[in-house]
């Protein structure tokens, strides 16, 4: 893509690892790690939406939280707007917070039940902006207007709202500091379908108006197709495939992506009958003990010998399309001398 060449990405994640220790035994010693996120890299460019999809427990939300450093990451580098956030100390981190915000999955849980809507939306302003009470009230009302909430609701409490309205409160809070980058952690998963569309449309509208950049985490493939510019597919803590939306949905390269996309329901019953679904067998391996070689080798319908021993590289196989799969790396090798020698070394 031409975009890559021109601009420095707003968010650059390199080899991000987030391992959670497991303690066990009599003395509560560390006995292993849950490799929730195990070495992923991606870039997000200003003004775009990167969709992050995958099944439950594959580490999507952990990526979102680690990128904002709500967790202390195990390894890797995260740069947002040129500043390294992975190693920033508490003071530096706090000064970077206004740049990036998060919208949470469960709008009920993400709002303090004892604070009024106005207080919830004003909290980031209190923390980071010096303004008078009147100015702050004005800003809160402006934000409520922006996300389509009636201003008269400012002094009500979260439990008095419906799910969609609560999510709007969450969005207003995320917008309060004029952030550049927002992590949307399954913002629509807890809402019913008619409200989902409203919230997604609101997010898109705000993106157009305010030039926001989103990392949109979801397991709803059709919603991601609607909102995302590029899509990353995660499996067991790693990115299987990252490609522009159209290419990914037209011609998925990774067998896991193919299987995932074949599971999307088709509204037309005539076509639905003809759709061939790729049914994966078995369960996702435990992230504390991922398989040797490719993470997907235990369930892959096109598994080869090499997949069980050698971990595939996450590399660009076509312009803008990254995939971690031996099927495509071998095809690539014929053209690339450098890769060929490495790959041969691995095969023999």
């Amino acid at each position, binding site marked *: 893509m031409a975009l890559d060449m021109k601009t420095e990405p707003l968010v650059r994640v390199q080899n991000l690892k987030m391992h959670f220790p497991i303690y066990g035994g009599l003395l509560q010693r560390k006995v292993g790690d849950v490799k929730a996120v195990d070495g992923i890299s991606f870039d997000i460019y200003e003004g775009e939406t990167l969709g992050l999809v995958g099944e439950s427990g594959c580490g999507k939300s952990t990526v979102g939280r680690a990128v904002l450093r*709500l967790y202390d990451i195990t390894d890797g580098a995260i740069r947002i707007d040129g500043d390294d956030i992975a190693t920033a100390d508490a003071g530096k981190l706090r000064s970077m917070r206004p740049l990036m*915000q998060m919208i949470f999955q469960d709008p009920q849980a993400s709002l*303090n*039940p*004892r*604070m009024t809507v106005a207080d919830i939306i004003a909290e980031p302003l209190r*923390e980071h902006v010096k303004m008078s009470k009147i100015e702050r009230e004005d800003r809160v009302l402006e934000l409520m207007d922006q996300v389509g909430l009636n201003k008269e609701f400012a*002094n009500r409490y979260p439990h008095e709202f419906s799910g969609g309205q609560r999510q709007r409160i969450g969005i207003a809070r995320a917008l309060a500091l004029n952030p550049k980058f927002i992590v949307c952690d399954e913002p629509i998963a807890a809402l019913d379908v008619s409200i989902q569309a409203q919230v997604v449309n609101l997010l898109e509208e705000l993106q157009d108006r305010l030039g926001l950049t989103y990392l949109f985490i979801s397991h709803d493939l059709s919603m991601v197709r609607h909102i995302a510019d590029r899509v990353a597919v995660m499996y067991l803590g790693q990115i299987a495939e990252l490609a522009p939306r159209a290419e990914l949905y037209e011609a998925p390269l990774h067998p896991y992506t193919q299987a995932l996309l074949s599971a999307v329901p088709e509204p037309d019953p005539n076509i639905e009958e003809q759709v061939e679904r790729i049914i994966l067998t078995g369960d996702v391996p435990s992230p504390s003990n991922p398989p040797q070689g490719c993470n997907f080798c235990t369930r892959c319908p096109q598994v080869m010998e090499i997949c069980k021993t050698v971990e595939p590289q996450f590399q660009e196989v076509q312009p803008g399309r990254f995939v971690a799969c031996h099927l495509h790396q071998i095809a690539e090798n014929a053209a690339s001398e450098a890769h060929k020698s490495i790959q041969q070394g691995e095969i023999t």
Partner: protein
Amino acid sequence: MTDAANPIAEIEKRKPARSQWWDVWDQFRSHKGALLGSIFFVIILLAVIFGPMLWHLDATTIDIRSRNQGPSLAHPFGTDQLGRDTFARMLAGGRVSLAVGMTAMILALFLGTLIGVLAGYFKRLDGLLMRATDLFLALPLLPLLLVIIMLFRDRLSAQFGPEGGIFILMVSAIGITSWMQTARIVRGDVLALKEREFVLAARSIGTPNRRMITRHILPNVLSPIMVSATLGIATAIITESALSFLGLGFPPDFPTWGRLLFDSIDYLQQSPERVMWPGLAISLTVLSVNYIGDGLRDALDPRIRGR
């Protein structure tokens, strides 16, 4: 939205930001038990504060000729074995008992909440603080209280006078031996709250720990704190009674509800009503405080308010 074009309407919109304390009061008023409890508690408070000034008999005046009398017009609650007026002693004793109860409760609550919040919120402190809590729970309290009082009574009496010294000693002894339940309950609640998404949201905003605790954690652990508080007053009054009974509290001629109760036990056969008065006073105070706590807890929770 629609009123954006109309600046007057805009200004008027902002005004009715009615203080939420009015909502709290409205909800509190609608809780009948709480209302009755607080009326009763205020009556007791007024009686023990102003009663001794108004009642013509002194709590310590000995009138040996009219000892062991039953209730009469001159002595509405009767007299004790030395002819002292029980009503006057009840009023004077209530002053001390309530003061000890409430101060000790506040101290225990403060300690318990502080330790509970610190242990629940900061993982590093958890082990240390909770083991300390367990240690306090495992200590046999009465012997410990006795030792504390033995050790410090004279020194404090010399410093603050006999009554002031004992008061400080009793309050701190009861306070530091009854915070553990509160600490445990608060810690449990904080641990659960800490994992809620709104705390994560506050962290993503960059709220520092200090304000995270005061803004997000404390208001949400208010209910268990409230419950411990109301129960704490009762325990403190009763513990004070027990200590007075053992002769380690206030001096024997100094009336408290606990002392009155235990003095009367010897005369249970002759005049059973003398046990009843302090017992009734303690029970009714505790009951009214419990109802007040119940009403306050409901009134402070926006989810219950307005229902």
